[in-house]
């Protein structure tokens, strides 16, 4: 049997070799289909990885809680417009929910920052020191402020890369410099490592962090002491996030004295939720790729079937001879199936090579990140095999069912 299969493969290769142009054109459908899929999936994977990296810049297992919206005579304000979340909420959450490893809070406002003869309008974030650990901010120089700075409302600031680029000369050391925010002088004690774009596309490095208490008392001029723009929490394990969210909701609803029929006056989001939106996007992309792949493999398969039907007709007499000397139906069947699979497999392999080349070229020319995964190559290979098998079945069966007498007489 092994000898039979081996010789049949050799015969199939020789027959295909005789009609190189025809075999090549037949394979083209599969080649293009597989190449398109490999290239697109590689580009898609690259994009997905980039998005995942962006989401990871949020921090690890982060939960974000926004205040609800104001509602005056039915007209609702924008999200976060209500002052429903306070510092004491955040402290209470940390006390009551052991799942939360830490909680932090922030409030932001866009203000003018001046250094020397340069100025910049950037978002000033008043934060608790824990915010920096939750969001995984690290430093290129200097370091974070402490609880003492918060308690004493110290005038210290941490600068994002974008701020540094806009206020300082290249090579100038910002740490130790004094900047002014709304004419209040602040000493720069740290420069943050860059995070790049957020998953929403905003520049995360265009930011200044100052102690929350300083912001509240000396910069923003808040009328409602203790109200925060957002609260942050984090858990040890990503699996703990849903439970933590439930517990946060319970605690906050109780503290805000909400009745059962009342809606939450806050919104809770987790990193997982945000990731899911992105996953949804890439799922759509995957479905589209699948559709493209199906269509091109279908077209390629039909091409193979077509050429095999021609081949069966051309070689009717040969089939008759083979039957006369003792070929059984499965022998004839195998011969044509192996020819079909050889066509589709060679097409598949060429397609894989072309697809990888295409993906690499995209990286070089357009600069898009591409990731060539072994999975997609295996799947493409397997699919081209299946296409050959499926579309070879009908012609092979047709050949195997020929009547030997009529086949021998065929002109």
């Amino acid at each position: 049997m092994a000898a039979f299969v081996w010789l049949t493969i050799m015969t199939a290769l020789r027959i295909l070799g005789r009609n190189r142009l025809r075999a090549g054109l037949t394979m083209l459908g599969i080649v293009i289909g597989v190449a398109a899929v490999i290239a697109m999936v590689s580009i898609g994977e690259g994009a997905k990885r980039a998005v995942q990296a962006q989401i990871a810049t949020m921090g690890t297992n982060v939960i974000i809680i926004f205040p609800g919206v104001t509602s005056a005579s039915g007209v609702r304000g924008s999200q976060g417009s209500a002052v429903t979340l306070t510092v004491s909420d955040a402290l209470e959450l940390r006390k009551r929910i052991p799942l939360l490893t830490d909680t932090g809070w922030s409030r932001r406002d866009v203000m003018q920052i001046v250094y020397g003869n340069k100025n910049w309008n950037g978002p000033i974030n008043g934060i608790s020191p824990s915010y920096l650990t939750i969001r995984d901010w690290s430093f290129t120089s200097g370091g974070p402020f402490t609880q003492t700075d918060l308690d004493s409302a110290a005038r210290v600031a941490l600068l994002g890369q974008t701020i540094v680029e806009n206020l300082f000369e290249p090579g100038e050391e910002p740490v130790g410099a004094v900047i002014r925010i709304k004419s209040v002088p602040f000493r720069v004690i740290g420069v943050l490592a860059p995070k790049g774009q957020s998953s929403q596309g905003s520049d995360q490095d265009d930011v200044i962090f100052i102690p929350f208490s300083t912001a509240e008392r000396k910069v923003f001029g808040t009328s409602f002491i203790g109200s925060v723009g957002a609260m942050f929490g984090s858990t040890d394990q990503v699996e703990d996030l849903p439970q933590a969210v439930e517990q946060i909701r319970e605690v906050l609803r109780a503290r805000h004295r909400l009745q059962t029929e009342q809606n939450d006056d806050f919104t809770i989001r987790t990193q997982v939720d945000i990731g899911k939106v992105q996953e949804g996007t890439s799922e759509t992309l995957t479905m589209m790729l699948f559709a493209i792949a199906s269509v091109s493999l279908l077209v390629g398969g039909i091409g193979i079937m077509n050429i095999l039907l021609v081949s069966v007709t051309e070689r009717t007499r040969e089939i008759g001879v083979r039957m006369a000397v003792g070929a059984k139906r499965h022998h004839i069947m195998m011969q044509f199936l192996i020819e079909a699979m050889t066509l589709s497999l060679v097409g598949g392999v060429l397609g894989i090579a072309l697809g990888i080349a295409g993906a690499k070229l995209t990286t070089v020319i357009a600069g898009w990140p591409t990731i060539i995964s072994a999975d997609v190559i295996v799947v493409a290979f397997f699919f081209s095999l299946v296409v050959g098998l499926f579309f070879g079945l009908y012609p092979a069966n047709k050949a195997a069912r020929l009547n030997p007498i009529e086949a021998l007489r065929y002109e």
Partner: protein
Amino acid sequence: MSPLIECEDVWKIYQVGDVEVQALRGLSLTIEQGEFVAIMGSSGSGKSTLMNILGCLDQPTKGCYRLNGIEVGGLRPDELAGIRNQQIGFVFQSFNLIPRTSALENAQLPLFYRGLSLKDQRTQAAAALGRVGLHGREDHYPTQLSGGQQQRVAIARALVTSPSLLLADEPTGNLDSQSSREIMGILEALNRDEGITIILVTHEVDVAAYAAREIVIQDGQILSDRRTKAHPPSSQVEVEI
């Protein structure tokens, strides 16, 4: 020992549209091991139908055909293929070699379907080519061989499985007289020296003259059946053994 071929009241009826064609009408025939038989008849006489049935390419509509004691009627197509592979060698008028395939590989073909190892296939096919005088032409393609040589490759292909029956359907129909004589000489020698049973279908009298027995078919029945040479088949069998 049973005869090689036993036909009893064999009928073959085709339905062509609304017309029923009786190609064979109650034909009975016995052929012993080692015989050299010529079957003659005009076109439409039913000799091709008879050949197809004897060669296990077709089955009788009615009646009984036994080859080496095996009832062929009622066998499935794959079983027929197995019998053809084991017992029968075919030589056709138009050679029917597989194009763009070497003489050796053409001669290997029946062994290929028998599932022999490639090495055995090659050795046996080369030996068969040697027997028909084509030693040294194993790698030639059909287009590189003359008509007579192509027919010899076909004979080698028929011989390679050591069949009990060699069926030659107008083997000289496409050959010039010189090649015809060579081919008939080979067939005659195979019958005489190796005791291979040969059934030859022809409409040429001088070709039929090589055979020891001449059967004439007309309208699906045997018109005449006579021995033209004293050729005791039984002694041939013993020689073969």
